[in-house]
């Protein structure tokens, strides 16, 4: 009974979404959109509760359900193991909140039923990726995810949106095509005759020894194939472009569901199909690790350069996704656990950052960073949450981002000492340490690109002052202004955050009325901010759970 229910959370949203599409015309004609929205929310909530119940019922044992046979040994099968339940739980937690947020964000949209239909379908498909019990099922849902989400990117229906959609489709399908090579190779050399996920991999050791380089080459292809959705460096370009989509899509899909499905797929493929045994210390490992590190460096630098609010966050997403991939590429239990904790932490941080950006865009129509002067006082709660997520993204202790970055560095250092014997060749000896340096560099860049928004929001005069000082030609004066502002920033920033959260404006900025969005948007934001702090302060249980996953699969 329990096993049979596994398919329900996957197909319930899909069926509901399709039904919504079919009734599109009727809903719009009769103006039933309000009711429709609440029904969707109820359905998503019920589905999430069902997932929670299934996870609770799972309790370590992994039930499985074979739905049907695609061909030969290729079955579509769901299974609830620890790693799947982790991702499914994350998705199930985020989705109802994001749907709630979408109510307000989409209130003036002309095509709400279609939007909510595809949004809900994406929920089911993402759960399909999470609960997939073998590589084929994951591949199927990975492909379906592309097709369920492209109408959402296309939603604004502008030329820009169409161009972004095209690019998204080409990249994603191209990625899947190369991942497909990985799929058939795993099938051909599988030790168990199927593509089922086995912690530690299931490639036949004899075949692995015989076709070693071929398998490594295929692994690299499949890494980049699945990595497309995780926006790994040469294939990252679709993600900033896709920021053209409505914010609920960018926030939930392009910061969590879609991109993390890509990262999740890489993790599954690396740790549960190929197995780290074959890969550890090989050239394939260093290639994929280098790709992740290049992505982190590149994207965090680009984010500083970008002035469009959502696109800057998108670049930040790219760099953070490669943190996960960096963890994946360590091929060690610690690496897997670190990748998963960053997957969790980044989900909360980035979704709340995007929701703030969306709230600003929706209520003030401001899209660019340089327009944000003083916004911290007009939308106090929003920017308080944004500040929390910024600090967390930088990796300040007490926030979730610190835990995940710490785990990553720890895993990298342990890998470095493991490889120092020369097991991984010359590259292997230095690359993990370079990785730590890259994380530090990226933290600095994150500080610049996130805090520059926060500073603008709370100290509208500050940027102007620095500019004037620089224009005045006095470097020392500029530095002095900077230092002075820096010192006051530390104290006043905290005061402003607290003060602003109480709706008071005692810093002396002209009061333009509170433009914070309604509770529909604020509730998710506040919940995410609390989650960030909660994980940051009390990460023990999560870390222990993830160490279990790392232990069995690494």
């Amino acid at each position: 009974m329990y096993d049979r229910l596994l398919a329900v959370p996957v197909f319930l949203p899909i069926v509901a979404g399709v039904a919504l599409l079919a009734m599109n015309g009727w809903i719009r004609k009769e103006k039933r959109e309000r009711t429709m929205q609440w029904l969707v929310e109820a359905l998503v909530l019920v589905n999430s509760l069902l997932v929670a119940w299934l996870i609770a019922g799972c309790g370590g044992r992994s039930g499985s359900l074979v739905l049907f046979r695609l061909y030969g040994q290729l079955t579509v099968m769901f299974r609830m193991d620890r790693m799947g339940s982790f991702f499914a739980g994350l998705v199930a937690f985020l989705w109802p909140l994001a749907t709630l947020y979408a109510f307000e964000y989409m209130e003036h949209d002309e095509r709400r039923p279609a939007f909510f239909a595809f949004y809900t379908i994406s929920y089911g498909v993402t759960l399909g990726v999470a609960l997939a019990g073998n590589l084929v099922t994951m591949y199927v849902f990975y492909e379906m995810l592309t097709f369920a989400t492209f109408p959402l990117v296309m939603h604004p229906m502008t030329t820009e949106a169409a161009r972004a959609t095209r690019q998204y489709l080409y990249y994603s399908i191209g990625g899947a095509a190369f991942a497909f090579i990985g799929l058939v190779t795993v099938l051909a050399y599988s030790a168990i005759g199927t593509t089922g996920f086995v912690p530690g991999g299931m490639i036949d050791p004899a075949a692995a020894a015989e076709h070693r380089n071929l398998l490594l080459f295929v692994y690299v292809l499949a890494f980049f194939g699945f990595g497309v959705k995780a926006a790994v460096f040469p294939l990252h370009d679709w993600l900033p472009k896709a920021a053209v989509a409505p914010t609920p899509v960018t926030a939930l899909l392009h910061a969590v569901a879609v991109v993390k499905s890509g990262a999740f797929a890489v993790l599954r493929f690396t740790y549960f199909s190929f197995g780290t045994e074959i890969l550890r210390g090989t050239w394939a490992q260093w290639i994929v690790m280098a790709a992740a590190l290049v992505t982190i460096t590149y994207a965090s630098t680009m984010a500083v350069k970008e002035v469009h609010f959502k696109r800057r966050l998108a670049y930040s997403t790219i760099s953070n996704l490669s943190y996960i991939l960096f963890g994946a590429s360590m091929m060690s239990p610690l690496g897997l656990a670190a990748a998963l904790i960053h997957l969790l932490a980044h989900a909360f941080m980035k979704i709340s950052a995007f929701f703030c950006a969306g709230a600003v865009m929706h209520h003030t129509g401001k899209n660019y960073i340089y327009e944000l002067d003083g916004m911290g006082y007009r939308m106090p709660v929003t920017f308080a949450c944004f500040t929390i997520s910024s600090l967390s993204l930088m990796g300040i202790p007490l926030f979730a981002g610190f835990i995940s970055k710490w785990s990553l560095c720890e895993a990298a250092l342990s890998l470095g000492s493991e490889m120092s014997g020369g097991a991984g060749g010359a590259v292997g000896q230095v690359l993990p340490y370079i990785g730590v340096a890259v994380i530090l560099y990226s933290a600095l860049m994150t500080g610049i690109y996130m805090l520059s928004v926060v500073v603008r929001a709370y100290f509208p005069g500050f940027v102007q002052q620095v500019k004037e000082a620089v224009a005045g030609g006095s470097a020392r004066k500029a530095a002095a202004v900077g230092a002075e502002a820096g010192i006051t920033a530390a104290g006043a920033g905290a005061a402003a955050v607290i003060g602003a959260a109480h709706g008071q404006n005692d810093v002396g900025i002209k009061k333009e009325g509170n433009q914070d969005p309604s509770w529909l948007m604020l509730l998710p934001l506040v919940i995410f901010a609390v989650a960030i702090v909660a994980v940051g302060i009390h990460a023990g249980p999560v870390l222990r759970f993830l160490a279990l996953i790392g232990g069995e699969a690494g």
Partner: protein
Amino acid sequence: MSFVQNFPFFSIIIAMFSGIVSSVLSGKKARAVSITAITVTTVLSACVLAFCLRTGQSYTYMMGHFPAPWGNEIRAGVLEGLTAVLFGVVMFLSVVGGLHYTEEDVEPSKQNLFYIMIDLMLSSLLALIYTNDLFTAYVFVEINTIAGCGLIMMSQTGRSLTAAIRYMVMSSLGSGLFLIGLSLLYDVTGQLLMSPAKEAVARIVADGSYQIPLLVIVAVVSVGLAIKSGLFPFHYWIPDTYGYATPTASAVLSGLVSKGYIFLLIKFFYRVIGTENAVHSHIINALFVFGVAGMMFGSLRAIMQTDTRKMIAYSSVAQIGYIYMGIGLGTQAGMIAAIFHIFSHGATKALLFISCVGLYKASGDRTDFLALRGSGYRNRLAGAGFLIGALSMVGFPMLAGFISKLLFATSAFASPHKMLITLIALAVSTVLNAIYFLRLLIGLYRPTKSGSFAEMEQAEQSGRGGTAGSGFAAPAANPWTMRIAIVCFIILNLILGLFSQPIVRAITDGLAMFG
């Protein structure tokens, strides 16, 4: 002898005679006769298939009481039956789906001629599938060419005439080469029936005599049939031909006719030359190389097109490349993949051609990308048909194209030298397919320039009701025949995608009977 064993012969004759009878009938009656003939032959073929599956073996059927070396023979097995059934289904749906447009595009006085050509096409395809005699095959190859030419010319625009002439020239070249191959084979072996010829070839190979003539035979026949099926360097007739014919003709030509020749080639390899000899001759490697090249080139050219019909036609070039790649792998698994792709591409391409017409009609009969903007809203069903077809082409799981891709990929592991090339070619080709099919697909669901949804909705309403909208002539509601055809094609695609196992098993059994 069971009565069912007569059915292959009956079906060829029924198709042939309905063509002859139609010459004195009116267009409407010819149409009825033609559709009946297709239905009946498909049912008969299904009986043959069931019979062969039950007995588990193939049989030869002697025509006119003359024994082997002299008489003419028909041979039916699981693979022949399956191919005949699927070809029949695709043909039926193509004719029914394009019925309405055939009436529009073809002059009333020539309506019956169109259906005569369809009948002849059907009979020649069935004959190519069933015959066990090489010369009979040649005769029906020619009949097929003429019928194909007639079908292309039917829309009687200037372009379709040049396309027909081009098709005629290329096809004649192909048949000529095939004939030369046959003559050489007859010279060397003294046989034209497939089974005795195979024994003779085996003797020759064992002797070590006539090695070079044998190589020439294989080469000439392969090239001849490759030209006729439009393999890469010989594909120049395809885009015009498929692009300017009537929808039914395009669907039938691209979905079936080129596949008929490939089926004949496979038969030639298995039943006359013997697979090992074909593999040893290295001709098969050339087919592999040109197949892969065709996959790339066809798709690249398709990307460059701005006219949908030409785009789909170039996509056919790429898909033919897939099939030859499978044959070129030179293994049993590769051949199974190739044959499955014959079916899946036949079903998918015909679906694309038929549903595209619906989109054209909703866009004022224009076929370029720009005009088709938003037509997915103006004609929902045709849009859905195109969506399924395009996804299948891209290899979306649960559709026919995915199984093809999977079979090609897994079969690649049996031939180590070609493995990596095959896998990467498949991946690259998928990307290219995605580029041109999905670009068009996005266009179909984008509103026209102004970007107003109210306008789109109006168009949608008018698509249902019949009033004018968005500047296009009122798109009449889809004719019911087309609706049935599109829905059936979609179902066929899903069947091939979801329940492929029995079909692949039947192909495997059928190939074993070929040997």
